């Protein structure tokens, strides 16, 4: 019974991890950078949403603003920070994303301080209950259900976008072969900017969705980013949909560890998974083959 409950509670959480991983691996696959500022970019967007919400009391508008801000932030990062070193050094790009991580955290501290802000849930209402058997009672909060639906919906939407639209095909072409895509007339700088925009707006969305649970603080997304990486590692960064599945597995695992072992060890055990996965099967569970992109 407990295990079913933890699965049900794990899925919404895992869907968010998956969404996080989706953004990270979209950027990684296309531009070739592991974005270590992903979480904090989402955190900053969540603060934007909070500010808009406090001003207008309109949650939908706030979320929309956060997502748009995420797209803008992604564009700016690509244009001014990533482009100069794009072909020079992977180490340099990595360190720059770490720099962005620190800067965003510092900026958030200056602007909004370190005290946590509470954030409204999307929907509030009595949780859904299911009774199974005699003493079985499963609980699914309404907000969690909505989060799952939104996450999966966005994923499917993006999948379709990448599969059928012209821009989506251009993105996939860019991720496969930069020179080749230039030859056929794709503006790769534009595509890179767009991918950064989409990736970070996903993180912004995650930030807004998780905010009711974590409250809005400058460090709210630190663990989220780690989970995003873990999900990506589980699913394999080379496969976009693997990361969603990886995220959901991770979410369930986390709840199981939390219930059966101890919440204190949740993060440690999850992180061990990363290291073990990377050591023994770096391609991830769902990727076909390890391309070893550096």
């Amino acid at each position, binding site marked *: 019974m407990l295990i079913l409950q933890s699965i049900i509670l794990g899925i919404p959480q895992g869907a968010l991890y998956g969404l996080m991983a989706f953004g990270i691996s979209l950027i*990684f696959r296309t531009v070739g*950078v*592991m974005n*270590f500022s992903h979480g904090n970019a989402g955190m900053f967007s969540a603060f934007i949403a909070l500010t808009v919400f406090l001003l207008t009391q309109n949650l939908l508008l706030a979320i929309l603003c956060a997502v748009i801000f995420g797209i803008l932030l992604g564009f700016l990062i690509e244009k001014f*920070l990533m482009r*100069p*070193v794009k072909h020079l*050094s*992977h*180490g*340099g790009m*990595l*360190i*720059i994303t*770490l*720099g*962005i*991580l*620190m*800067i*965003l*955290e*510092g*900026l958030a*501290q*200056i602007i909004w301080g370190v005290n946590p802000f509470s954030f409204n849930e999307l929907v509030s209402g009595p949780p859904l209950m299911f009774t199974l058997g005699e003493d079985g009672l499963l609980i699914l909060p309404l907000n969690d259900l909505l989060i799952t639906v939104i996450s999966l919906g966005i994923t499917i939407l993006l999948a379709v976008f990448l599969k059928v639209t012209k821009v989506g095909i251009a993105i996939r072409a860019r991720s496969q072969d930069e020179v080749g895509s230039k030859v056929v007339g794709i503006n790769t700088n534009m595509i890179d900017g767009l991918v950064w925009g989409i990736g970070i707006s996903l993180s912004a969305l995650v930030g807004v969705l998780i905010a009711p649970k974590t409250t809005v603080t400058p460090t709210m997304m*630190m663990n989220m980013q*780690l989970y995003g*990486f*873990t999900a990506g*590692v589980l699913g394999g960064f080379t496969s976009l949909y693997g990361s969603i599945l990886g995220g959901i597995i991770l979410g369930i695992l986390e709840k199981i560890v939390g219930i059966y072992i*101890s919440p*204190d*060890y949740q*993060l*440690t055990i999850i*992180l*061990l998974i*990363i*290291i073990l996965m*990377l*050591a023994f099967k*770096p391609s991830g569970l769902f990727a076909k083959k390890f391309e*070893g*992109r*550096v």
Partner: protein
Amino acid sequence: MNMKKALIVLIIGVLLGVLFINKSFLLMIFSLVLIYAIAATGLNIVSGFTGQVSIGHGAFMAVGAYTTAAMAMDFGTPFYINILAAIVLAAFLGFLIGLPALRLKGFYLAIATMAFGVAVEQLFAAIEHFGGHIGMRNIPRFFESDFYIYLLNLVFFVVLTYVASLILHSPVGEKYKMVRDSEVAARAYGIKPSRIKLNAFIVSAIYGGIAGALYSHTVGYISPPDFGMNTSLNLLSMIVIGGMASLEGGMIGSIIITGLPFLFSRGNIPMTLIFGALLIVFVLFFPQGIAYGLKLLSMKYLGRPWALLVRKSWSRRAEDGKYVTVNGKKIFYRQQGNGPAIVMIHGNFGSHRWYEKVSSIEGYTTYIPDLVNFGKSDRIDNVSIDTYADFVKGFMDQLKIEKAVVVGHSLGGAVSMSLAFRYPQLVSKLVLVDSAPVNGLVTPEENFPVLEMMKGNVSLLRNSLKGIMPACEDQKILSEVVKDALLMKDECFSENARALSRYDYTELAERYKNPVLFILGKKDMLITHDMAENTLKNLNGRLEVLDHVGHSVILEDSQLFKKLLINFVNL
């Protein structure tokens, strides 16, 4: 860093400590700077020298700190035992995190190390015995006095930096760099990159562990966030700002990253903002870091006053020789002996002194001028080989030398070729000593900044001159020709090299029918065998290759040169 430098650093450190002996707050900061410098040096070994970016290095410090603290508090064991345990544990952990590193590159490794760093932090926070999130307090400090604590840290820092330099200059250290630069090439040389990376991880983990152990007994209390993600990122910032792959980088970065917060402590600006901005600015604009900038600065400017002084005093010195005026310019020369004339022309960065040991040739008069723009001769504006040759012709005309054997070394070889090919009647025989080839000698563009730098840096100049006379053991003559080289006209440091690329006498050479001897040192780094053969192609000449000397047989084996010269002129 050699023993001497290490001692100098130690002495400076002690003096600094004595200077602030009453300011325990400052001494504490100094201690922290040293501790983080140790950890950063460790990180630099794995990230800077081996090229494996790690963002979980705080974890090694955590292990070191918690091990010594727990052992000291639970068992009361002395520090030297505790630190051994800390080293062993840190090394083991380094081994563990190095294992995935065997298969991972770049970003994957970064993720793994980040996860590792956070995992260790969380683990310590979860263990009740270690005080959980609050951490451990009242850890016994090394000494009561902050000064002694500082001294202990200083000794650790100096010794560890010295050891690091030993490691980095050992074969293993070279392998680190090979793996960083190209794993494929390293493998081709029979190196196992995975083993080397693991090695680097363990070494750097040990540095982290020691730094952590020092931290816990210096500060007296530890908590998991002290060694968390922020610390790891700070360590990375230190080596990026200070200088990747530079031993001084860790220390410089540590001064900035550890010291800066105390400067800004009154303001409300979070340090992460400043560090992040610094990190990005450095990666984008100064990727080599401060250490490199300082090195460049000191090479360019620090030696300048000294070079100027040497030059001034050396140019005042009276030389034993005569002057003759050619086209209104005074030319300094030395003359020795009686009989037919031999004119000896020195090379770039040269002077008459290069021929000092071979100036007495029995049965001949030797004329050894300083070329215009060199040594004690006057300066001219038009720097070209032909102009130099014209001045040599004028010099011969003034001294009524109608025919002479001309010896030319290096740039002087080009000058004497120009002279011989354009005025064949003046030159009865031509001796080219490691001469610039007949079709010009091109200096790679990237060498020019270094040539420029030699103007203001005596030791650089000395080293490069030493490099072109590998077999020369006479230190006295070396230091004299170095001073002579400084007398050269300022612009000529690079202009001469450019002039050498601007001529081509291949066709002119056919006009010269007299015998030519080309002497080439096998260890010559400037003139190749092909160049020498190419030079002799259209000449009536012979090539003499000497196995044991480099570019400057005149100074390296004067007696042999003299013998070859006498044989040739008497032929």
